[in-house]
């Protein structure tokens, strides 16, 4: 009887997905919701013989997942993953349906699942994960999840559900490391041993006081945000020594970073095929997952050089002479990292922010005031103009005005067609920082006009 229901649920899910495609909708969560409704244990059944890697945390989930995917490719593992940002229960169930036979037999050995902390708590009840990566914990869209301590407890609950998983934790994040007190799993730490940037934006620390005793932290170095060599002045809680770490940063350029990566004692000089300090963390996280799962570290290091970046994560979309890079932003910590990158970039460029306030973007846009846009004044001469678009374009324009940018330089372009035509006419580097739904809309317009692939294909 169960077998029949399982088959029915798989078919219903795949049919819904197919039907949505036919009518031109890229919806990614509805088909899975249908399946879960029909057969609540569907995830448990479909994942039984699959080795599941879960990637969670506030920032860097998608890029880390893409890097891990590359290590799976290069080490010859068969796998599937939940691309396209469908990372709630429904979306994940749909991926499992899509990647098993109609009778529920596995097609692939590995599943790489990216999910946000809230979904992790839920899906971990059904999945017996082999490895869990926690990238970091920052303040996210607070209108949805509340406080960082709430995020933390969701992740802890998720790991407690994943009794057999080896857990990879960011040693530089005092919030993430505190998870170790609550769990009994095997833990492998990763981190960055040194400062990354010469100049960095001013940030509010999301964790100035010790999570355990509420005394102030001191830092031997900081990479960004609250990440770095922390130590509590009260109880002595401090950064653990990581097994996988970035020892040296040789070079950071517009298109890559070159680092010395230590993977459990073996050192590799690695060119990470994506710019930005936060991607150095994503690379270390990836190597950590590989190490934790016993993959060959040489292959893992090579994968970091060959992978291509994901959807809206420094993704390059060349349009005529405009070298457009899309950098999805979701919260101040992520946005500050993009600014760190831009402020160390001397090339003449155009900067665009697309700010929406739909549910998936976070309905509260006040976070743009927690981002140190003032730092752009350091590179004012190389910024040809700043354009703003999206539902809250006016708010964004005002933010730049108060950051001290000349109002002459700020252009409000709410019409996407006009915006895209103007980008196409630009000659040089264009950095566009959209929120989630703005990215979907703009990317679709660009895809329609210039023939790039739609993301769900």
């Amino acid at each position, binding site marked *: 009887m169960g077998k029949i229901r399982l088959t029915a649920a798989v078919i219903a899910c795949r049919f819904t997905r197919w039907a949505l495609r036919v009518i031109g909708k890229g919806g990614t969560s509805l088909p899975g919701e249908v399946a879960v409704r029909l057969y609540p244990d569907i995830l448990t059944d479909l994942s039984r013989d699959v080795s599941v890697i879960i990637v969670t945390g506030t920032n860097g989930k998608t890029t880390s997942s893409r890097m891990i995917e590359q290590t799976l490719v290069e080490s010859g593992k068969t796998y599937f993953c939940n691309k396209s940002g469908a990372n709630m229960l429904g979306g994940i169930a749909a991926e499992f349906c899509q990647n098993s036979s109609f009778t529920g037999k596995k097609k692939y050995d590995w599943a790489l699942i990216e999910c946000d902390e809230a979904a992790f708590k839920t899906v971990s009840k059904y999945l017996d994960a082999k490895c869990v990566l926690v990238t970091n914990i920052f303040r996210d869209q*607070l209108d949805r999840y*509340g406080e960082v301590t709430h995020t933390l407890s969701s992740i802890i609950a998720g790991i407690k559900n994943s009794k057999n998983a080896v857990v990879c934790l960011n040693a530089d994040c005092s919030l993430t490391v505190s998870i170790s007190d609550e769990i009994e799993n095997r833990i492998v730490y990763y981190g960055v041993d040194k400062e990354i940037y010469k100049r960095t934006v001013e940030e509010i620390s999301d964790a100035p006081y010790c999570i355990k005793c509420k005394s102030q932290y001191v830092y031997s170095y900081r990479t960004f945000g609250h990440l770095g060599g922390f130590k509590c002045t009260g109880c002595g809680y401090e950064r653990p020594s990581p097994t996988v770490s970035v020892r040296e940063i040789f070079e950071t350029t517009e298109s890559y970073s070159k680092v010395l990566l230590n993977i459990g004692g073996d050192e590799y000089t690695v060119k990470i095929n994506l710019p930005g300090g936060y991607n150095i963390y994503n690379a270390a996280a990836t190597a950590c997952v590989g190490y934790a799962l016993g993959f060959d570290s040489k292959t893992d290091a090579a994968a970091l050089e060959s992978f291509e970046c994901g959807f809206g994560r420094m993704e390059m979309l060349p349009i005529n002479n405009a070298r457009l890079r899309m950098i999805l932003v979701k919260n101040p910590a992520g946005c500050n990292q993009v600014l760190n990158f831009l402020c160390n970039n001397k090339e003449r460029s155009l900067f665009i922010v697309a700010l929406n306030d739909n549910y998936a973007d976070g309905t509260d846009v006040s976070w743009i005031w927690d981002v140190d846009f003032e730092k752009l004044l350091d590179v004012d001469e190389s910024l040809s103009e700043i354009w703003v678009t999206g539902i809250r374009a006016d708010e964004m324009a*005002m933010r730049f005005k108060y950051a001290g940018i000349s109002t002459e330089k700020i252009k409000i372009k709410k019409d996407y067609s006009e915006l895209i035509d103007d980008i196409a006419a630009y000659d040089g580097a264009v950095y566009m920082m959209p929120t989630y739904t703005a990215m979907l809309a703009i990317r679709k317009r660009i895809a329609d006009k210039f023939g790039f692939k739609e993301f769900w294909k």
Partner: protein
Amino acid sequence: MKTLKICHLYPDVLNLYGDRGNVTAIKKRLEWRGIGCEIVNANIGDKTDLRDCDIFFIGGGQDFEQEVLLKDIASGKGDAIKDAIESGKVFLAICAGYQILGKYYKTHTGEVCDFIGALDLYTVGQKKRMIGNYVYECELGGRKTEIVGFENHSGKTYLGEGVRPFGKILYGNGNNSEDKTEGARYKNVYATYAHGPVLPKNPYFTDELIRVALKNKYGDDAISELDDTFELAAHKYMVNRLIK
């Protein structure tokens, strides 16, 4: 040159939802008018002299840090804040900062936490948060105006006899989602739940705080007009979206 000194109270822990943008707004609007601006941060443990500050700002924060904060308030800063309020200094208090100026906070499980007690009001916690864009009407410098912001609070605030509401809710919850009141006014204290931050896209509000502080210090509240095209566009967009 005229100069105003702004004191940002507890920016180390009360720094949520972009509230520091309020300090930026005051600073910029002073600078654009050729008025000097000095900013002092009074963090936990700092022995800042509050007496020579002209405008005080206290913003929203996470519950986690509240314990550290209350200890510091009890060690003397609470009394200094009360004195400053009684002497007519300009205060902008947002969300947690607003609640803390009141008498106490009662959690939804019944625990009572004593606050500064500078304002005759108290807050009761509930499980459900009141979250969203909102708009209220108030009077600033004898002129009726609408203020737009983003509220995000689980505490319901009730006003006593000693204070009056700052505004009347046109869309959203406000103090307690029951009596249509929003925020509180007492002497030169302006307390509200509006994040956003509230000042940049409500430039009349910023200018009102500046005028009152200038009058306090120099006896003259004349300020020059600024080009508010960007600010008013952001303001108007939200007013239209919510109530028009």
